[in-house]
């Protein structure tokens, strides 16, 4: 009698709380969805890291190209030397005019020669700036174009379509001096440069991206250094990746949907690349993945 009552009670409670099987199925479905979502997230990360690694490779190559054969370092040193050539020629002319005026015309000729030389070095710097910009532009666009031509890349259940609308910007590393050093045998010029604040912090390296003018009357000439990691003893800085905080962007070379005609005023020593890839997932899901990578050029391997 009692047993019958108990079984009736259990039966009534089961019908009240529902079946276990549907619950188990629900849990299984949720777990499956979660597992799939986890796999999708992992795959997305895999996709992103693959795209990032490709972009990093491209931008590092462009960074290495920037200071190939230490072109930037050479120009920086030559800008400093041309500055000294003009300064010493002016100083000699002043001394000659007071002490040996019969060779004054020769001293004037040598001063004019040094000034012409300084203008040529500056012209070479500006010309090389344009060449470097063009080289970076061509190197990066050709790489990306190659990827686009390769077609769609299938990775697990994602389809990747590399897009050609990249952004490229060149600039320099924030808080990096030039590799050109203060004069050694011209204390007056060094004092002048200190007073004008031409040196980077408390070092003897010149500040980049400013016109380090000579005293009057040669202040009409332009002497502009580029930012470049100097060689410290035997250590030459390699090209390396940078964070966006350390990048000082100066000129946009390529912008998506815009016709850019860049004019580089100075030699760039860092390059920023933004690539865009269309990621298609099942169920008509689509997302554009934007990857930003920045690289510096290699440092200078020369010391004065």
């Amino acid at each position, binding site marked *: 009698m009692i047993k019958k009552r108990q079984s009736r009670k259990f039966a009534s409670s089961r019908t009240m709380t529902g079946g276990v099987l549907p619950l188990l199925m629900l849990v299984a479905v949720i777990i499956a969805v979660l597992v799939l979502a986890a796999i999708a997230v992992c795959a997305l990360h895999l996709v992103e890291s693959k795209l990032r690694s490709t972009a990093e490779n491209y931008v590092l190559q462009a960074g290495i190209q920037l200071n190939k054969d230490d072109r930037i370092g050479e120009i920086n040193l*030559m800008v400093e030397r041309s500055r000294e050539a003009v300064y010493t*020629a002016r100083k000699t002319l002043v001394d000659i005019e007071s002490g040996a005026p*019969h060779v004054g015309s020769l001293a004037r000729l040598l001063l004019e020669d040094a000034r012409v*030389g300084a203008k040529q070095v500056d012209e070479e710097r500006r010309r090389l700036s344009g060449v470097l910009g063009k080289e970076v532009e061509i190197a990066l666009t050709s790489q990306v174009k190659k990827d686009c031509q390769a077609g769609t890349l299938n990775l697990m259940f994602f389809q990747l379509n590399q897009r050609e609308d990249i952004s490229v910007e060149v600039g320099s590393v924030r808080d990096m001096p030039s590799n050109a050093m203060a004069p050694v045998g011209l204390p007056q010029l060094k004092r002048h440069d200190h007073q004008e604040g031409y040196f980077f912090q408390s070092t003897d390296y010149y500040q980049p991206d400013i016109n380090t003018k000579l005293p009057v009357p040669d202040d009409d000439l332009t002497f502009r250094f580029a930012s470049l990691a100097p060689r410290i003893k035997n250590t030459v800085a390699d090209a390396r990746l940078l964070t966006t905080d350390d990048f000082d962007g100066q000129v946009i070379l390529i912008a998506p949907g815009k016709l850019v005609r860049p004019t580089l005023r100075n030699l760039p020593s860092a390059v920023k690349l933004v690539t865009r890839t269309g990621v298609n997932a099942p169920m008509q899901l689509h997302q554009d993945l934007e990857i930003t990578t920045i690289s510096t050029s290699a440092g200078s391997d020369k010391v004065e």
Partner: protein
Amino acid sequence: MNKKIKLAGCSAIFVCAISMLALGLNQPCKSQMLGGNYNNLILIETEEVKNEFEYKDSIIGPVVKAKVTYSRPNEEDATPVHYETLWLHGWQTLGCRRLNELRLGNGQSAIQVKHKSGYGSLPEGEAAAKAILRVFVDMYAQKHAVTTIIVPDESIGYILNQMPRAGFNPGPKSKPDVPVYSLIVIPVSTASGSEHQVLYYSPGSGGG
């Protein structure tokens, strides 16, 4: 008999060695060998710089480097002082790195040119000519006259051909009874002494 021959041989070698040593001691110093007794020797050594500004369309390459040192060869301490280094693109001065002051002693001064390669190319000859002029004017600014210029045999032509651009016209040595109308007269000779010329300075005749 053998002993006597050996002794005679040894004596001969000894005598030879002593006489060679004596000759060596009497040898004049380098600057004297070059034809004069100079108190100051300013040496310009040119070198073509490889792998710099050699990229396509460079307007300042190839570059020649001219290292300028000075010494007092007749003094015991004849250690050369590195005065400055010049960078030139042929005749065109590009840069200078001054390292020390020009502190010449009293007396006669000679400028000597050498080419590191051993042969003087045209760019090296042009660069040497401009370096000579810069050093010459620096010396004049300190009231030091140049007594003579000694240039390598192989590049005397290249160097002298450039000089008229700065108002220095080369010519033969004038006879003692012929008056010379020139502000500055500098003898130029080759290192071997095989050729002698004179530079006559006429301001305003240079084309730059």
